[in-house]
């Protein structure tokens, strides 16, 4: 069973429905026991880094999520769920994340470009991974974010250009995470969700 971690942030229903659309069962849950029992863990999220981290802690969800990841369960982080994996974010002052990936979260600098980076943008594949590979080069996904991740270890799977080139997805062992929203990216996104559900 795929568990979509509910910690009170954002539209989780689309993630669940996305899995169902490709024939997979997923539950939305904030119950640490159900997350511990799940075969796959999905950490979605929109909103502020600090609030999300706080909510995860308040609901006792940091431990089951981290334990699940360390036990080798396939993990998918979406948008803020990618950013939370990192050590720290500079969003509204510095805040600590889960620290599962080395690096930080930075804000798009002030420029002529609009922030948030919002809309459909394409990915450039840096290397093959289980969820994205060379054949996905140039695929468009839906993005909405003001911050981006800066890994300090070699985990980048794809990059995207918005004034600068930033990491749009990462993979490390059983962890996969993307800045874009597969559940909002029509067929391209559903394909990625399916691949995740099929990961053992």
């Amino acid at each position, binding site marked *: 069973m795929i568990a979509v971690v509910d910690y009170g942030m*954002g539209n989780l229903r689309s993630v669940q429905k996305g899995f169902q659309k490709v024939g997979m069962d997923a539950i939305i849950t904030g119950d640490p026991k159900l997350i511990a029992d799940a075969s796959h863990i999905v950490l979605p999220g929109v*909103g502020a880094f600090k609030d999300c981290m706080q909510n995860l802690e308040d609901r006792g969800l940091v431990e089951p999520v981290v334990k699940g990841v360390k036990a080798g369960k396939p993990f998918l982080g979406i948008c803020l769920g990618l950013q939370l994996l990192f050590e720290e974010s500079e969003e509204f002052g510095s805040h600590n994340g889960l620290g599962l990936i080395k690096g930080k979260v930075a804000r798009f600098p002030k420029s002529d470009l609009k922030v948030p980076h919002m809309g*459909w943008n394409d990915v450039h594949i840096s290397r093959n991974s289980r969820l994205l590979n060379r054949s996905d080069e140039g695929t468009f996904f*839906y993005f*909405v974010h003001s911050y981006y991740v800066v890994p300090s270890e070699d985990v980048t799977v794809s990059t995207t250009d918005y004034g600068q080139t930033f990491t749009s997805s990462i993979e490390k062992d059983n962890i996969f995470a993307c800045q874009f929203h597969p559940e909002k990216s029509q067929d391209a996104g559903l394909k990625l969700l399916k691949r995740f559900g099929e990961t053992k």
Partner: protein
Amino acid sequence: MLTKRIIPCLDVKDGRVVKGTQFLDLKDAGDPVEVAKEYDRQGADELTFLDITASHEKRGIILDVVRRTADDVFMPLTVGGGISTVDDIRELLNAGADKVSINTAAIRNPEFVREASAIFGSQCIVVAVDAKRVAGKEAKWEVYTHGGRNATGIDTLEWALKMEDYGAGEILLTSMDCDGTKNGFDLELTSTVSDALNIPVIASGGVGTPEHIYDGFEKGKADAALAASIFHYKEYTINEVKGYLSERGVPVRKI
């Protein structure tokens, strides 16, 4: 490269599409979910539902429409119309909406925008601004509410900047002068607001041809274009419009 977005907008009343669309091949062209699926097939980048249900008792119907849409359509969905409380927003997001569009409630109480964006994040708070040109030499626009009936005395550019400051993630900018004319956007209004803001601006009101959308992006500097009748009456499909834009060098996502 970030592409320009094309957003079809459906007016929904009591759970039904008003200003009936002409998708005769659909089982039920009055069902917003069926129409949403058609736009999904055509390559829309996002969808917007404007709920114009008048009676408060029937407001729950839109939640069911949103739920059924989110079951089948996997692209960003914005819902506007009569949103005035944090609970209204929460219900819509839980039903599967990604963004809400706030109009009159923001005028009545600007703090509501600050509160909503602090709770749910700027990315899901769109502030809809209905602007009407003020007669005179200077290019100025006044904000209106209630579908252009009530003047507020507020200057559009000042208001848009204030809403950005209060945490709006996007501005949906409708020209009340151009809306329904099919003569194109108010390009001066659009570029004035888009140039001044650091958040995306969606141009709305007046689209009759693909060229109008091209102008909205190129001259109006809009980040996205919202249109209704041009798509509802099958004058053009979304992919046809994107083909037109792409040939002229506008970055769009084609499917």
